[in-house]
């Protein structure tokens, strides 16, 4: 393609022109303008004139960085320009490389290696720092491998800025190419002793990054860090050292003991908030066993909470949530401030405070805290209001409502939450309402009371967020109708016209509940007239009697004593029952033509039942003495059967119930069942409603309780014959007849209260309850209601955390370098801290060997270099001797060697973590 003409380059737009033009383009035409500019750039960038290319690349990089335009196609031009002699050209080229190259996919990066190497060894400090910053941005394994020797040289550069940047670059190189650790690590460690603050902060920053992944490898360097902690006065450096100790201290308890004192001193003497906060965090996360230090830190946190600065408040709350995991009393001490933060204007602070408040919830204060929170939720914006409600539900429902003692209160509270104007947590509330109904028998009467209020209120029907709650409330009122004071008003509520606002699935629940209520009223009525009517004596169901009698004494006993003067019984006249039946018939009649399958089916059920019982009711109304007609008998029997099936107590089912069912012999579960598809193809699976609960004795939770009741009593001859025919045809898929009977009796019922395991769990609950009651609140006479639960809850999946392989490699290399060191020094004297500067001849020779492989060309140069190092190391040894008075042996090389021989044996042993600072 032809390059740009002379005229094009004469009038080439500079980046300033481009920016000005972009600012002047009318809104909306920007993409078109950029496309045109890119078109120009494509032409200009091919120019042989470096200035033209430079300007084009400058513009392109700008468009890439701030307007998100792809520039991967121009990668080669960046590489080309980076060889330019002009510093500004180079700068642009490197910046565009740093901003646009993807280290993983851009393949022209390899072409940059040579330019980078040249610039890294250039005498111009600007060029070197430019190359270093590029390298740190786009480092990939190949670049890291090829440029390690240059970096190694720069780590001891005499220019402070260059050395600083080299240290910062090392991190990326280590990550990409762990083998470079062996080459560079000693030089990096040497820099820990540097007096220049810039270099020190760079090295300490590097180590704080490295310790983040694999702290154990850096334990041998603890003495150096300790020295910095004590001596250094720079906030940045101290913060980073504290970060390192936060990682190291949990690994080595003695280290924690040693550093906790200086940290406390820094905390109380230094003024910088950032440093103080870092001290607090270090103590709270890593040194929580030092009580006095924790106390001091919590005091500081309180100061933070009292500040006006929202940042400090926020961080203070975060610090408290760290303490909360181990030491809840610290949070309780600051409860006043935490609660005050709940009404802060900042959502971050409010959320953090809310989380903390939920941490301190216990059996004793749950009522108080919930009351405070609900009043806050009424005042706050919808988003936060729902956060509050969500947290309350989560905390109270945690571990089978372990913090709840008074379930009556909690059930009332749930009703209150559902009525909070912005409430969008309907699903959770609904789940808990039903869950409590099933698990906590003693709470049922209050539950029925609460749900009655919910179902009756016509205003709630208009709120779509409430529908889940209403469905739950309707289910509860239907299921536990025998505990209700007035079934008639519930029936009216369930059939009120505004229910047309509900979604079909919720409506289906309403209709089914109405069905249950109707059943209950019928049954009670028939029992009431049991003396004079011809009800079979078997109707006096001892199980039901005992069931109801178990309930709270303020409950209305509806059976057992038909002559009791309860309000329900008072209402149970023939007229009222008839009115009830008529009400149901009138309201459900139109629904029999509904388009919704669930609604249609359930209303048809109810209507069918009404058709069955109405003649009987009318008959008994006409002939008060009772007609002994055959139809009536069957009707009352039917009512009894349906009622029995409905009054069966539902309970929670253990998650692992299925697993406990033994697989009968001869049942091939693993066989290929593909050909079953054609048999079952036309059979539709039953729609799952939101409350598909398993009845213990039945194999399926059919939504059609009516037909179920019938089948139970006498399976119709038609269906049995069909079944037999089917069995004959597809005998393969049926269990053997005898076998079915035998095993079905053997199945442990899913939630059988006599289940051994569940029993044990319950006993345990009772036991702990007792001990709690005797220990903590002897005044409470009433024991906490039993919550049915299973000890084998959900199996928590342990997620295997993956640490990067690269990080492991780094730490492996570091271990090799450091523990190699360790072995050489620890044998000579226990008191001597491991020092990397104590490089013996052999280890420096080891480095030289690596050097040799890297600098294959510069062999002679390396020789001098090795000498220099030896000189350095002996000089440093002297220096060290001067400091360390305990050590008497001089720097004689002979001694070094003899000591080294002894170390050989030590090195073979597993590396032992030495005593630090002791």
């Amino acid at each position, binding site marked *: 393609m032809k390059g740009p003409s002379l*005229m*094009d380059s*004469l*009038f080439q*737009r*500079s*980046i*300033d*022109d481009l*920016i000005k*033009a972009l*600012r*002047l*383009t009318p809104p909306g035409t920007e993409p078109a303008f950029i496309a045109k500019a890119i078109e120009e750039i494509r032409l200009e960038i091919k120019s042989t004139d470096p*200035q033209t290319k430079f*300007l084009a690349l400058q513009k392109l990089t700008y468009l890439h*960085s*701030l307007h*998100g335009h792809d*520039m991967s196609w121009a990668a080669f031009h960046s590489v080309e320009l980076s060889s330019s002699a002009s*510093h*500004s050209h180079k*700068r*642009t080229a490197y*910046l565009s490389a740093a*901003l*646009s190259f*993807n*280290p*993983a996919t851009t393949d022209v990066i390899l072409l940059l290696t040579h330019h980078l190497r040249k610039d890294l060894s250039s005498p111009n400090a600007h060029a070197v720092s430019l190359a270093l*910053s590029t390298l*740190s*941005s*786009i480092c990939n394994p190949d670049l890291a491998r090829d440029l390690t020797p240059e970096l190694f040289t720069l780590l001891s550069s005499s220019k402070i800025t260059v050395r600083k*940047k080299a240290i*910062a*670059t090392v*991190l990326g190189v280590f990550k990409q190419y762990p083998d470079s650790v062996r080459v560079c690590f000693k030089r990096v460690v040497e820099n820990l002793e540097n007096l220049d603050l*810039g270099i020190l*902060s*760079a090295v300490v*920053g590097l180590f*704080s*990054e490295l310790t983040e992944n694999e702290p154990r490898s850096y334990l041998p360097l603890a003495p150096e860090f300790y020295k910095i902690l004590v001596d250094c006065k720079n906030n*940045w450096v101290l*913060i980073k050292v504290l*970060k390192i100790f936060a990682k190291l201290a949990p690994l080595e308890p003695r280290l924690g003991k040693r550093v906790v004192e200086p940290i406390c001193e820094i905390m109380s003497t230094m003024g910088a*908030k*950032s440093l103080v*906060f870092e001290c607090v965090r270090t103590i709270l996360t890593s040194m929580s066993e030092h009580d006095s230090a924790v106390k001091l830190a919590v005091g500081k946190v309180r100061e933070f909470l009292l500040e006006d600065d*929202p*940042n400090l*408040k*926020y*961080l203070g709350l975060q610090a408290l949530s760290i303490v909360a995991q181990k030491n809840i009393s610290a949070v309780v001490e600051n409860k006043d401030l935490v609660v005050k933060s709940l009404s802060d*204007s*900042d*959502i*971050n*602070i409010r959320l953090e405070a809310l989380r903390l408040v939920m941490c301190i919830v216990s059996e004793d204060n749950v009522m108080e805290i919930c009351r405070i929170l609900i009043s806050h939720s009424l005042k706050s914006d919808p988003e936060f209001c729902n956060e509050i409600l969500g947290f309350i539900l989560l905390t109270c429902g945690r571990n089978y409502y372990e913090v709840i003692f008074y379930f009556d209160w909690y059930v009332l509270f749930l009703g209150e939450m559902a009525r909070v104007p912005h409430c969008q947590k309907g699903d959770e509330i609904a789940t808990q309402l039903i869950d409590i109904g099933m698990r906590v028998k003693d709470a049922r009467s209050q539950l029925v009371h609460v749900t009655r209020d919910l179902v009756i209120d016509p205003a709630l029907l208009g709120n779509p967020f409430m529908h889940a709650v209403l469905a739950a409330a309707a289910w509860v009122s239907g299921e536990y109708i025998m505990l209700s004071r007035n079934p008639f008003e519930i029936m009216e509520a369930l059939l009120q016209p505004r229910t047309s606002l509900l979604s079909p699935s919720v409506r289906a629940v309403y209709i089914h509940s109405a069905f249950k209520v109707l059943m209950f009223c019928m049954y009670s009525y028939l029992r009431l007239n049991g003396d004079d009517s011809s009800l079979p004596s078997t109707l006096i169901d001892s199980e039901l009697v005992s069931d109801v009698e178990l309930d709270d004494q303020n409950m209305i006993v509806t059976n057992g004593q038909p002559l009791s003067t309860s309000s329900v019984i008072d209402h149970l006249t023939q007229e009222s029952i008839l009115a009830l039946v008529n009400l149901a018939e009138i309201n459900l009649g139109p629904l029999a033509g509904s388009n919704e399958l669930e609604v249609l089916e359930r209303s048809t059920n109810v209507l069918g039942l009404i058709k069955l019982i109405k003649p009987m009711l009318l008959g008994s109304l006409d002939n008060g003495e009772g007609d002994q007609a055959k139809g009536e008998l069957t009707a009352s029997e039917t009512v009894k059967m349906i009622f029995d099936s409905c009054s069966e107590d539902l309970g929670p089912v253990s998650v692992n119930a299925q697993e406990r069912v033994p697989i009968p012999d001869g049942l091939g579960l693993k066989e290929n069942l593909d050909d079953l598809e054609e048999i079952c193809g036309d059979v539709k699976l039953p729609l799952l409603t939101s409350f598909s609960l398993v009845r213990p004795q039945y194999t399926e939770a059919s939504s059609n309780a009516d037909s179920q009741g019938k089948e139970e009593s006498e399976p119709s001859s038609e269906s049995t014959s069909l079944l037999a025919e089917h069995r004959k045809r597809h005998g393969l898929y049926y269990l053997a007849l005898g076998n079915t009977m035998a095993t079905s009796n053997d199945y442990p019922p899913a939630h059988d209260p006599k289940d051994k395991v569940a029993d044990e769990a319950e006993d345990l609950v009772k036991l702990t309850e007792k001990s709690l009651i005797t220990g903590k609140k002897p005044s409470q006479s009433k024991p906490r209601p039993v919550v049915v639960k299973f000890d084998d809850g959900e199996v928590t999946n342990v997620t295997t955390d993956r640490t990067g392989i690269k990080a492991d490699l780094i730490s492996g290399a570091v271990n090799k370098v450091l523990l190699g060191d360790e072995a050489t020094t620890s044998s000579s004297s226990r008191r001597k801290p491991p020092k990397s500067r104590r490089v013996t001849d052999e280890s420096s020779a080891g480095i030289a060997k690596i050097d040799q492989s890297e600098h294959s060309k510069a062999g002679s140069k390396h020789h001098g270099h090795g000498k220099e190092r030896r000189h350095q190391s002996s000089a440093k040894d002297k220096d060290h001797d001067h400091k360390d008075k305990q050590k008497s042996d001089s720097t004689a090389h002979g001694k070094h060697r003899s000591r080294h021989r002894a170390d050989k044996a030590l090195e073979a042993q597993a590396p032992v973590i030495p005593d630090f600072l002791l």
Partner: protein
Amino acid sequence: MIRGVIIMNDQGKPRLIKFYEFQPPEKQQELVRSIYRVLCSRAENVSNFIKADSLFGPDVRLVYKTFATLYFVFIFDKSENELAVIDLMQVFVETLNKCFREVCELDIVFNFYKVHTILDEIIMGGQVLETSSEEVASAVDAISRPLSLSLSLPLSLRVCVCARALVSSCEWVLRCNRHLLLQLSLRVLEHGAQKYLWLNSTECFFSSLYFLLFRFV
């Protein structure tokens, strides 16, 4: 380490985007947009932190600060201290102030490269290098001194000079070849019309050209 630095104005237009781990350009734009959405909803005088779990994953924190019309946003992980990063942000702004003498949004708009240079002196590869604004400012001065020499003339000036040269030299060109001049003017006009419609200086340029054309054609 520090994961990224973003400067954007109060309309959500990015002025500087720098991530220390590679992010494709579309992702960068998307992140800027979603951060801006959060920033908009923040009231004044609230804490400077933003929950960024949904954008960057857990453990990553985000602090921002407002200076005049600009938001400065720093993204970093748990190996940095939150308050220290806020201080660092202050250092960055102070340095900008020193380098541009009373910095305003326009300075950052038109000095894309210089701002990057300044940032590179403070943070490299996610590691904080220098926390003193004096040091950074002097280092940036040292780097950009040779740079300023190579700055080319602004385009408007180039155009004016060109047009003036055309007009003033018309006499002898006319004598040589009237036709050549016409051709030249037309080509200049063509390029100008393509590229410089948006420039204020175009007016001056075109007036010269029309003058030429009317006089000699």
